[in-house]
């Protein structure tokens, strides 16, 4: 162990707090009506993720996790939200998110999902190391909450935010369950996320060109015949 016992105790409880924050941000995203705030929340989530990864790196002495934390910070907390922000302004998307289900109901559904995630992850958590115990459940819950967000939102951008939030949840799962995937896989995943993001950007402009709107209700023409 590289760090003193005192720091370890503090670090572990801080890590737990960060994990819980991740969950909280997941819920805040579900409750959020404004697109701009949604993007800010995404950035915060990325930041919390980076901080959490760095903390795990500090506590376990895994050097690879430092790279992962730096990657998260650069990509998920700074670059992607900034680009989304720019996109939002370039495309002049109007500010509100229209939800399919009203927000309190969505939040209650979210609680149900979290309980489901916790019970599913409980046996896995029991096997993880002491530092990250219980966090797989939170990561899975964050992933499921992002699914819920993607399902209940109409605007393309908010679905993308849900998609990226899901990615954050998965990264957190990798960090907490396995102390990070092998570096080459992690790089591959990050590369895919980046390419996917670029493709989405192109896609937004195509959509804009064709529909003059980012509302997905335009995308409901194909019906089962």
């Amino acid at each position, binding site marked *: 162990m590289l760090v003193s016992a005192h720091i370890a*105790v*503090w670090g572990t*409880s*801080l890590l*737990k*707090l960060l*994990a*819980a*924050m991740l*969950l*909280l941000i997941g*819920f805040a995203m579900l*409750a959020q009506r404004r697109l701009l705030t949604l993007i800010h929340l995404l950035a915060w989530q990325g930041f919390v993720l980076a901080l959490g990864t760095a903390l795990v790196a500090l506590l376990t002495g895994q050097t690879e996790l430092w790279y992962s934390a730096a990657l998260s910070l650069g990509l998920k907390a700074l670059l992607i939200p900034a680009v989304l922000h720019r996109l939002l302004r370039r495309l002049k998307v109007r500010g509100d998110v229209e939800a399919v289900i009203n*927000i*309190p109901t969505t*939040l209650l559904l*979210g*609680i149900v999902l*979290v*309980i489901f995630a*916790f019970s599913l992850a409980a046996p896995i*958590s029991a096997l993880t190391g002491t530092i990250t*115990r*219980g*966090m797989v*459940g*939170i990561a899975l819950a964050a992933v499921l909450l992002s699914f819920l967000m993607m399902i209940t939102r109409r605007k393309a951008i908010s679905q993308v935010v849900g998609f990226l939030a899901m990615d954050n949840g998965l990264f957190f799962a990798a960090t907490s369950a396995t102390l990070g995937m092998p570096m080459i896989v992690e790089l591959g995943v990050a590369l895919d996320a980046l390419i996917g993001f670029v493709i989405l950007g192109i896609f937004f402009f195509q959509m804009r060109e064709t529909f003059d709107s980012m509302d997905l209700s335009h995308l409901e023409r194909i019906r089962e015949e």
Partner: protein
Amino acid sequence: MAANLFQVLQTLLVLLLAPLFAGYLQNARALLQNRRPAGILQPYRDLLRLFHKESIIAEGTSWLFRATPYLLFAAMWLAAGIVPILATALPLAPAADVIALVGLFALARVFQVLAAMDTGTAFGTLGARREMLVAAMAEPALLAALFTASLLSHSTSLSSIVDHLESLRFALHPSMVFAAAAFFMVLLAENARIPVDNPATHLELTMIHEAMILEYSGRHLALVEWAAQIKLLLYVGIGIALFLPWGIAPAGDLAALPAAAFWLALKLLAAGAVLAVIETLLAKLRLFRAPEFMATAFLLGVIGLLSYFMLGA
């Protein structure tokens, strides 16, 4: 014997301190908003004035209307003997755990709502319905926050919770952080503070608490107002007991009393300042957003509970 002394001391202290705390809060807000404060003793003067005035009973009301102010006051006074504000393990403390305490507050609310409906005026009914709208969500949120603390300390008695939490020293518990946030939101809602209600307005579009007590006057109004002030102090007291329990004296330990009083004063000053800042910074929510505010509080409470189960802290 000393424990009994503590009991009497705390009960009287809460009773007398409540208007002072309210006055401090008003003053702080006024200063923050660049208004001239009315002086920290203004609530005492108001109460005194009201006690000297004649009480007018609204026409067509039943005994319920007249009994409610006394009942409210009695309920709050009883609660003042239970919450460990100055000391834990008071002789009255075993009378009610946190759940019973929530029940006591609920009882007071039910009477207040019934009395408001009893007047048969549009405002009374309106206020009553709005109060229940907020309460319906606030109570589960409050319970969720309290359960988190109980789970952590394996007890529902406030005194043992305080004792246990005090023994933990400064450890960071995610579940307690969420519970604290939930509790704080409930505190704002239950005590008719901004952003859920504005204690200083009589606009029919927005008022909740004020609409319920419009028909009261004289000593009845004084009792209702006083009860509301005690309630606020009690909520702050519960909040301190749960989330900042350090420095509360065990009952009967006279030597610890000065320190306990000092810490209490300091914490109340800080809490008042925080409340004043929050109320200055936030705008009142539209009434239909109030359930969402409470839903958020409930959510926070539940996340607190869940993270206790998941993270074990």
